[in-house]
């Protein structure tokens, strides 16, 4: 990670800022205008003060009477400058916020649109945590320098105005300023360069400490049942102490540079007084000029640091921007055909599915080799195979979450790739192995945008054996579920996912081990219910359990990414050793035990 403000980072950082400026031209122009007003009026207020000193304060003491005309002019100048400056400050702050937050929101919308557009295979290649942080932390970091940017522009205006004012007042005094202000800027640059790697490290450690706490608390059951709390605390302590040391290291740098950055302008004012006194004795300036320049130094000391803040944010910004841009530049998308599917042509007949010569690889590793089988309309087919046989990958191909490397998947004789967008979802419903619920109500999660009545939703819940627990939820169908909603068990979540599929009356229903977290008794009820209701559906079901397999008209047995055999359950039992071995494991075990017991009993009897 780039942490130093190198010239390359600077260039890139400025380019990022350029993008924001181009995108928010009008707001940025206004913000700069406000900022310039602020900058100009900061110098203006010092000038007003100098004017009041020169024309009101000093004459009063010298002459012994108040020049009331000058007094009111001075008051007006001081108040007027402050008022204008305040407008500038308010405008600058608010408009800077508008640009920053708009750009953040824009990046977030663009990145998530891209997430929704890119194919699932792209998602498979990128860790979830990384994608989430691209849309949140990186989008924020990319535009962080926009907050102090208008102020920095204002400061440049301020310095420019101040330089002119000083040059006009007195060249020698101006030279003191030309010495001090660049010195502040350089010191600030050194400060940021020293600080930024240390701050990055502290930030990194903060994330690591949080990770350990998350993992350790998530694994609490393991930690506790093995009595490893002490071990975990040691692990946490080590990292917490590293974080402490990193924070103290940051503190040392801050602790050194902050007082130095305050002392430098103070030294500047003192230098102005010394040099000014000499210029005064030479008759080159008046006392009011001296006060004005000294006051200017006091006012400029703080804002000049804004330049440093922008620079400090640039490295983080560049990294954030590059990560966001990498997502936006990602290519690849699912192309859709133009064939409108059966449902759109008012057909609600069960769909026919054909898988023809399909192969699929994750990177180098091919997980499906030349898989072919068909599911005639209205039939129920079970996909059976040991763990790692490729069943879930095959399921993804059936609903076109991914496209095969070779071969075709045909729905009612049409290649899935030729169907128009949304065509597959209209006819096919998948209940995946991993249940996902949206941060939405029960109704919203089941309808997912489908126009449907509450009666239909309840009917689907009934079929999924979810009616009972949903009715008991505090707000019924309106209960918020998902990540931040009511807590549901794995089985309950699976049943909602099932209801989501059946409410659509799909012409093809695909269940990927979708009842694994449900009690066997409840599962049986669901499956019988489905069989009765699924007259209008073709069903593909991935399963281990005998009860599930028993519902199927036919079984396709998959092993090592190939179709080993297909036929009825009885046929496969007879002729396919792998299948027999897998599905009768429990029975055989029972039988063997029974045999042993018989033998043992027999022996006992015999003895």
């Amino acid at each position, binding site marked *: 990670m780039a942490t130093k403000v190198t010239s390359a980072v600077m260039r890139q950082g400025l380019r990022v800022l350029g993008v924001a400026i181009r995108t928010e031209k009008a707001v940025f122009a206004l913000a700069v205008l406000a900022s310039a007003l602020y900058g100009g009026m900061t110098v203006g207020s010092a000038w007003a003060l100098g004017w*009041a*000193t020169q024309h009101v304060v*000093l004459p009063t003491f010298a002459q012994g*009477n*108040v020049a009331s005309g000058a*007094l009111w002019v001075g008051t007006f100048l*001081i*108040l007027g400058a*402050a*008022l204008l*400056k305040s407008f500038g*400050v308010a*405008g600058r702050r*608010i408009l800077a*916020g508008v640009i920053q*937050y708009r750009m953040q*929101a824009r990046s*977030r*919308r663009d990145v998530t649109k891209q*997430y929704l557009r890119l194919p699932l295979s792209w998602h498979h290649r990128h860790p*979830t945590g990384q*994608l*989430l942080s691209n*849309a949140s932390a990186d989008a924020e970091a990319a535009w962080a320098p926009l907050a102090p940017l208008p102020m920095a522009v204002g400061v440049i205006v301020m310095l420019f105005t101040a330089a002119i004012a000083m040059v006009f007042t007195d060249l020698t005094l101006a030279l003191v300023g030309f010495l001090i202000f660049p010195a502040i800027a350089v010191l600030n640059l050194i400060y940021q360069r020293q600080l930024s790697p240390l701050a990055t490290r502290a930030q990194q450690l903060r994330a690591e400490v949080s990770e350990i706490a998350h993992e*350790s*608390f998530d694994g609490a059951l393991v930690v506790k049942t093995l009595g*490893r709390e002490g071990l975990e*605390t040691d692990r946490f302590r080590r990292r*917490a102490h590293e974080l*402490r040391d990193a924070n103290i290291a940051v503190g040392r740098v801050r*602790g050194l540079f902050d007082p130095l950055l305050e*002392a430098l302008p*103070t030294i500047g*004012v*003192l230098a102005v*007084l010394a040099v000014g*006194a000499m210029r*005064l*004795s030479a008759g080159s300036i008046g006392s009011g000029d001296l*006060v004005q320049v000294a006051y200017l130094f006091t006012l400029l000391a703080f804002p000049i640091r804004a330049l440093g803040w922008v620079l400090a944010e640039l490295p983080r910004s560049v990294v954030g921007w590059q990560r966001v841009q990498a997502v936006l530049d990602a290519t690849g998308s699912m192309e859709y055909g133009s064939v409108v599917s059966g449902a759109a042509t008012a057909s609600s007949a069960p769909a026919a599915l054909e898988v023809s010569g399909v192969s699929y690889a994750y990177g180098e590793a091919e997980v499906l080799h030349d898989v072919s089988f068909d599911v005639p309309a209205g039939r129920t087919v079970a996909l059976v195979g*040991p*763990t790692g046989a490729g069943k879930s990958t095959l399921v993804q191909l059936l609903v076109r979450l991914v496209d095969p490397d070779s071969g075709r998947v045909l729905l009612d004789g049409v290649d899935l790739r030729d169907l128009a967008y*949304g065509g597959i*979802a209209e006819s096919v419903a998948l209940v995946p192995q*991993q249940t996902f619920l*949206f*941060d939405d109500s029960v109704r919203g999660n089941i309808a*997912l945008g489908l126009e449907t009545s509450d009666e239909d939703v309840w009917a689907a819940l009934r079929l999924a054996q979810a009616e009972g627990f949903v009715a008991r939820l505090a707000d019924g169908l309106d209960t918020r579920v998902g*990540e*931040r909603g009511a*807590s549901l068990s794995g089985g309950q979540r699976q049943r909602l996912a099932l209801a989501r599929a059946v409410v659509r009356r799909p012409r093809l229903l695909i269940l990927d081990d979708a009842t694994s977290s449900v009690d*066997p*008794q409840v599962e*049986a009820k669901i499956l019988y219910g489905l069989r009765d209701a699924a007259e209008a559906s073709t069903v593909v079901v991935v399963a281990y359990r*005998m009860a599930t397999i028993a519902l199927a008209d036919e079984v396709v047995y998959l092993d090592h990414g190939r179709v080993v055999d297909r036929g009825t359950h009885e046929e496969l039992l007879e002729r396919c050793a792998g299948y027999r071995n*897998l599905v009768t*494991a429990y*029975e055989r075990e*029972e039988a063997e*035990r029974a045999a042993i017991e018989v033998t043992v009993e027999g022996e006992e009897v015999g003895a």
Partner: protein
Amino acid sequence: MTAQSIQGNSERSALDTIRQGLALAPEFRKGLAGTLALAVVATTGKIIVPIAVQQTIDTGLKSGSPDIPYITRAVLICAVAVLLTALAAYIMNVRLYKATESSLATLRVRGFRHVHDLSVLTQNTERRGALVSRVTNDIDQISNFMQWGGLMIIVAFGQLFVATALMFVYSWQLTLLVWACFVPLMIALPRFQKLLSRAYTVVRERTGDMLAAVSESVVGAAVIRAYASERRTAERIDKAVNANRSAQVRAQTIVGFVFPLTEIVAAVAIAGIVLLGVRLGLSGDITQGELVAFLFLVTLFVSPLQTATEVLNEAQNAVAGWRRILGVLDTPPDVADPGDEGVELPRGPISVAFEDVHFSYPGGAPVLREITLEIPPRSRVAVVGETGSGKTTFAKLLTRLMDPAAGRVTVDGRDLREIRFSSLRERIVMVPQDGFLFDGTLEENIRYGKPSATTEEIELAMTELGLADWLEGLPAGLDTSVGQRGESLSAGERQLVALARAYLADPDLLLLDEATSAVDPATEVRLARALEGVTRGRTAISIAHRLSTAENADEVLVFDAGRLVQRGPHAELVKEPGVYADLHASWVSAAHS
């Protein structure tokens, strides 16, 4: 379902919170007086410029032509003073950082350890995120405050104090004038802070909504595509992102309006000083140098008041964070380790007894009622029952993840509550259904069961469990990395590792809570056999989800609606009508239909 609630959120007053918080942080109090003394020295640096200006004007420039030697001397003295105060500020800063970071690190580790001692961690998974915040964000918030806001408060008070003191020396009338200008602002600031705090609360909520919505596009990628709900999801995300943006802009607008108020007030004060000052000058109450110095002194009021709303806001957050941590630390562990006073369990097969045990969650319906049973050493027991019958509660009471509400659980005749945790956890090990793994290699995860185990021991354990073949099939064997929470492995594989981990711990009582439910049938059968071999001579209790486990047990415990309704060997139970016979029938039909 909350086993216990975390105490203390709003009852405690801010002062009490800070007092108690400091009591828990000895590193912070040590040397605090010295740090404050340095802070006083450091803030006096702020009035050097006004003094120098006043001296230059009143003494150096009095006699028409400037008194150069005097001015030079004054400037040099002031410059030395500036450097000295800067040095004091540096030492103060470093001391402050060291003190706060050390004390907060201690508090962090204490909080972490304490959370692990609370049963809420294993009972209520939704609260985990909040508990993580206690030892991360909450502490960070306090740390941020102490090093920025807290420092600002010290500096602000010091600055206002020394400025006012010097003002009084010059002119009490003008001092009153300045304060008269700033006091209304000071009174108004807490109101602004409330406004701002409310705006920031909205921002935090909207940010939470936004993050939740954004995560759907990633975590729900498959479902969104399968149901063609991209557009609907995009609309939801846009709404959440835009709501977040509006809340941020609103908060920023409040800051934008409040921030410059101080400038205006300062200008009014300066104008007032000029108006009143010249008249005081005429009556000889003030010199011209003092008057000009006043103009400089007013600037010292600006930065403390400008940042006051944000400092107050941070202070509020820090106190809230502190309150939450104290809330955790004040919650007594409901399942407490007797520690050194506890007894040690001798090695050897374990017997278990439940004596009229009841359990219910606070305010909830009873989960277990009148459980009385004995499990002799070396027996193989299966626990069966429908979801919600109390099986898992039984397991948690037996492993002392919770204590019974009434009655007692004993092992080898000893009440579980008397047994030292270190001994209890060594002798009794449970394998939970969810095979949680730590991010690391397989070997590291298995070794978690016995930190001193050699690689050979681990390999041997895998062989004994019949898992050597599976291990060989993995790309990197024991060095295979399992990913976060073990997610690079399948659910079934995670269970295998969890089982190996528990087996390596070599307990005398092994409790399996549906520990192989996600493994494919062929593997599960193999594993069951291996387990039978390796648990011979130990007490083994399995919460069973299938027939054969129950059939092979010496005894079956049947739970129904929180009661132990039947017990005995399978062969007997299956013959009598009752819960077990029904359960058995449904298993058989599920397996053979």
